[in-house]
């Protein structure tokens, strides 16, 4: 599903250049649950941003679903993103002025899905995460765990091919964290491809594969014959 070939990402300022990613070669298959781990500053978030099409590469090739999107314009990336990806962030990133159902419905609005369809799909998504009774609440009225579950609902509502989760349990207590991870596991069982950045070994163990990064490079892409067999 995803193919990264010789990816390099450089951040250049007036005074210096920072190489955030170098020589990244990565393949993610449909239906995989992949965790990315590494110390702070190793390039996990940069990798996540590139995979999430919200940042571009300096060098290399990015093939998504058999399409080379390396040189896509911002406009085309937006189209690809909204049609194929779902995002879950560490600090939830819900919009404070919108209600829970409006937050969840947001991706469908940008996909110009008609209102009646939107409403039914929002109900389904909120049911999936167990928050139907909070549909009219504002994010500030929810606990951290509930907010993250809303974020999960928002991430899946458009049936994305790939869900990107950046430290999804980072701001949660262990119980809520477990609940969220359970949701992700369920989604993966239902067929969603998930890429998760995490510091938590516990959370990472829920994934099929752990990619370990250091200093902008992949040290271990988690593919071993046994693991591949187990996944298959």
């Amino acid at each position, binding site marked *: 599903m995803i193919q990264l070939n010789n990816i390099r990402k450089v951040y250049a300022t007036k005074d210096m250049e920072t190489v955030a990613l170098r020589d990244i070669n990565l393949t993610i298959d449909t239906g995989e649950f992949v965790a990315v781990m590494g110390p702070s500053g190793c390039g996990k*978030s940069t990798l996540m*941003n590139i995979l*999430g099409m*919200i*940042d571009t590469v300096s060098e290399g090739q990015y093939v998504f679903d058999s399409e080379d999107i390396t040189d896509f314009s*911002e*406009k085309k990336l*937006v189209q690809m*993103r*909204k*049609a194929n990806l779902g*995002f879950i*962030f*560490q*600090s939830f*990133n819900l*919009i*404070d*002025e919108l209600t829970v159902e409006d937050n969840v419905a*947001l*991706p469908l609005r*940008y*996909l110009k899905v008609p209102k009646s369809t939107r409403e039914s799909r929002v109900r389904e998504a909120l049911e999936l995460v167990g928050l139907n009774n909070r549909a009219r609440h504002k994010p500030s009225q929810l606990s951290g765990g509930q907010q993250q579950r809303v974020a999960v609902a*928002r991430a899946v509502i*458009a049936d994305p091919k790939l869900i990107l989760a*950046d*430290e999804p349990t980072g701001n949660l207590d262990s119980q809520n964290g477990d609940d969220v991870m359970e949701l992700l596991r369920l989604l993966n069982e239902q067929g969603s491809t998930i890429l998760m950045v995490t510091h938590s070994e516990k959370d990472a163990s829920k994934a099929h594969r752990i990619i370990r990064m250091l200093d902008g490079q992949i040290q271990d892409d988690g593919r071993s014959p046994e693991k591949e067999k187990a996944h298959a």
Partner: protein
Amino acid sequence: MLKHFLLSAFSHYAKAPLTTLVNVVALALGIACFFGALGVSSYWGQSDATFENRDRIRLITQQFVSEDGDMRDNPMVAEPVAKYIREDVPELEAVARVTSSDPATFLVDGAPFRLETALANSELFQIFDFEFAHGDVESVMDSPGALVLMSSVAKRIYGDENPVGKTVQFGEASIAISAVIQDPPQPSHFGTTDQSIRPFEALQVIPAASEDPEEWWLGVTNFTYVLLPEQNTEAAERSLNSALSDFSERRVPEEQRAALIRLWFGTLTLEELQSKVLDGQIFKDSRNALSVNNILFGMGVLILIVSIINYSNLATAQAAGYAKEVGMRKVVGASQSSIALQYWLEAFILTLLGFVLAVALTVLTAPVLKAQAGIDLMAGLAQNPTIGFWAGGLILTVSVLASIYPVAYLSRIRPVEALRSGKVRGGNRKLTELLVGIQFAAASALLILVLVVGQQNAHMRDLVLSPDEDPVVILEGLAVNGNHSDDYRAMLDQYPSLKAVTHINYMPWSDYRNMMNTSPTREEGGPEATSTRTDVGYDFFDTYGGELLAGRLYDPERDQYWQAYADDYQGDFPTVIDATYAEALGFASPEEAIGQPLYMTRQATQTFGWDPTFRIIGVVETVPLVYGIGNIRSNFYALARYDSSEMNLMIRIDRTRVADGIQAIEDMVKSRDPNAVVNLRFTDDEFERNFQTYQGINIGFMGLSLIAFAISTIGLFAMAVFTTLQRRHEIGIRKTLGASTQDVTWQLVKEFTWPVLIANLIAWPVAYYASTLYLHNFMQRMDLTLLPWIVGLIVTLLIAWVAVGGQAFKAARVKPAEVLKSE
């Protein structure tokens, strides 16, 4: 602590220089408008300040409500008032009256000079301490019937020579010049120009004792002044007011009072006179009870409020960026009052800077105002003894009002929230939108008024000014002494560049008011209507205009002047009316009115002792002759001719030979009266000259509207900068979720559009009310259309979109990765 607050304030300004500049400029504009209004009001209030007795001088006023409901509130009174006030209040030090000025031709060493001359009694010089250029009070008092000249006039006629003792010829009489007085320094209600309230170039002074006024109380033609005594001033004033309270009942004959619903007398100080007259010039119907002073002041306050709201909004949005700082201050011990004091100080400094800029703006624009409107704004402000109080009070008040919202907002910040996330919203979004809406409501209402006033002005221009038609000229006071329009009509063949000649009893576009109230039936409760009465000669309609719609016009072969009928004449008086009057009287068409009678109302019959039957012989199209008198929008034309300086020749000149025509008029008039001073005034010029007030109003509104828009727009722009900055994170999320740049831009623009739409809804009824009030002043008024309102809406939306759109687009282009990098 003060030093610390000051340093903090300046560091905040430095962090947001654009916002600081916007705030200072907006506050400056608001303060400048307020002080402009104050300055104009002060200037008018200084009127006649050079006269020593100013505070003891009172002007008697005469107010009445007539049968048609018209209310007149006049600084002029009937002729007999002075005589009876003198009798009723003997403790008054002096009572003087000055009549209206009429043009009079004097011969000086054989050369004719036409001077606006008023009659005044000698006590005028006890009341007003005019500065004498030549002669003195004694020389005036010692020479009853002599002339006193204004110095500008004396210089024009005699150069630097002292004219006291010289004589001028007026008809058969020789009149001596007893003194020359300096033109009173402005502002003063005395003067030599038409803009002066009490203009005259020469005064013929008669002793008060020899006065024998006509007992006619319905013609208000005199300024009557009284001088309260230096001792027991208040008691004398009470006595005067008491005498005036029932003056009408005691002195005015009942038959004359019967023509009016109510007649009463009062007083004005000289300070009040200027604004009172201006109110009357602009608001022709006194029932409006509006004051130009109050309106100006109201406008100044409105613009100031707009600028205060602007500051409040921006400062609150800015305050969101100080949340962490304020949180920390609270953690380390800052109280609510300490926070309030700190941020009030920031507002105070900016208000002070705004005030300085406002002073600079006022100094720069004052010469323009003086040149355009004759108002010395700087003098008005400088001579206002309370100006220091106003300045200090204003700075304090504005800074307090402007800081209320941001201080309230900052006080509510909970330290723990601010310190944890550093993210706090910049104020309540709904309140912010409401405040933006109020700003735009003021600007929108003013813009609609500008459009309505402009449309009405254009409407008047279209009706009156006709570049493709023959020009019409007026020769004031020349249809007299055997030189009637009929005499000149007989000479027209000799002057082919002149097409028609007639006469009229007033100068078109002046403040003329003479009304007829008639009915087509003598029955009680029958239809009746009031119209302007215009006395004209034959060929009036051929000369001035007014197409015949039904019947016929006045014909010298068939109709004679009304004055020619014997006193006991019982027959019909042939009458021409216009179509508007015919409709008001209930006639279904002009044709239906022909041959019908009109009768004066019972009260008018009692008052004037005259019960004629007017027979309608013709109905003409309605043409404008005056600006407007309340609800009266029509003309009743009387075929009249009398020997009075009110009678003015009116001549139509061939438009292809205007220069020849002017010369022809000079030749024609001088052929009958070699000493005549031919002073031509084109009716179009008269319209323009008198129209300046309305043009001035339009320019005034336009200026205020522009200022209000400027403040609102730059405020909105700055708000857009702030808001989009604050919402970068949210924009990043939206774009991550699939929003395009267009989606985000449109969302932001839409959010800023709502307050502007609401602003228009608020502004529309206000603008409608103000527009109808303004249009009420015109006889020829346009029909209000939706156009100004629609244009107002479009303009405000466009301005808002331009202000916001650029920022919205810039913000919408943010790259999500940059914004969400911290994740």
